């Protein structure tokens, strides 16, 4: 259910900043009427104050999201990038995180989605899965990875 709109943008190039990456992803959420008009701006603002970059196993991940009142229907979108864009680190450390995997979270009732959220974050600890996500160039392959990880 969290992946049923298939917001899956793979191996994007010509994306030079985190802002353009966030915009591109968020536009898909808006086109599917999953979020309110304030979602994009709210995600951007939040990312500045409470950044979501994670550097795990030499792969940079970001999980941009915002308050649930900007969300109409829960969904998780994905984008992989050929060249990393820089996000600030979630733990506030000075070094920027070169991000190539972005999971945009639109969450209406997070507690109900705990199971999926946990599985998703457990994936961050599996280097081979992250590497496969980075390498995958078609939607079917991506779906089969997340199916293997019991996300769908």
């Amino acid at each position, binding site marked *: 259910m969290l992946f049923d709109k298939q917001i899956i943008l793979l191996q994007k190039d010509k994306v030079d900043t985190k802002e353009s990456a966030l915009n591109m992803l968020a536009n898909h959420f808006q086109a599917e009427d999953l979020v309110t008009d304030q979602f994009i701006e709210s995600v951007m603002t939040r990312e500045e104050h409470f950044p979501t970059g994670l550097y795990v196993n030499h792969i940079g991940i970001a999980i941009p999201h915002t308050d649930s009142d900007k969300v109409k229907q829960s969904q998780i979108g994905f984008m992989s990038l050929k060249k990393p864009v820089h996000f600030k680190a979630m733990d506030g450390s000075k070094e920027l995180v070169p991000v190539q995997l972005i999971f945009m979270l639109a969450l209406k009732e997070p507690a109900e989605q*705990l199971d999926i959220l946990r599985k998703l974050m457990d994936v961050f600890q599996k280097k081979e899965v992250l590497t496969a996500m980075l390498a995958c160039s078609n939607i079917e392959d991506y779906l089969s990875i997340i199916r293997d990880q019991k996300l769908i």
Partner: protein
Amino acid sequence: MKKLLIMCGTGVATSTVVTGKIKEWLKEKDLDKEVTLYQSKVADEMNKIDDYDAIVTTTVVPDKIKEKVINGVPLLTGIGAEQVYDAIEQKLK
């Protein structure tokens, strides 16, 4: 009863996951009857942080409370998770 606060920027994503993990850990340690968990966002807690015995955060916090919080990001990445649990246990003693 000890009070343990878990907070992130919005209180919706990372703190939900971290709360789940800590809940299980407390059970394993047989501490779940002695600790009450609270989940919130930074902005709502700034003036109340002294109410808690331990605070775990998965986001950037203002400098003035930095000393009082435990960085919970390792619970998401798995790298250094044990040290986080140790630090929480110390605070709850």
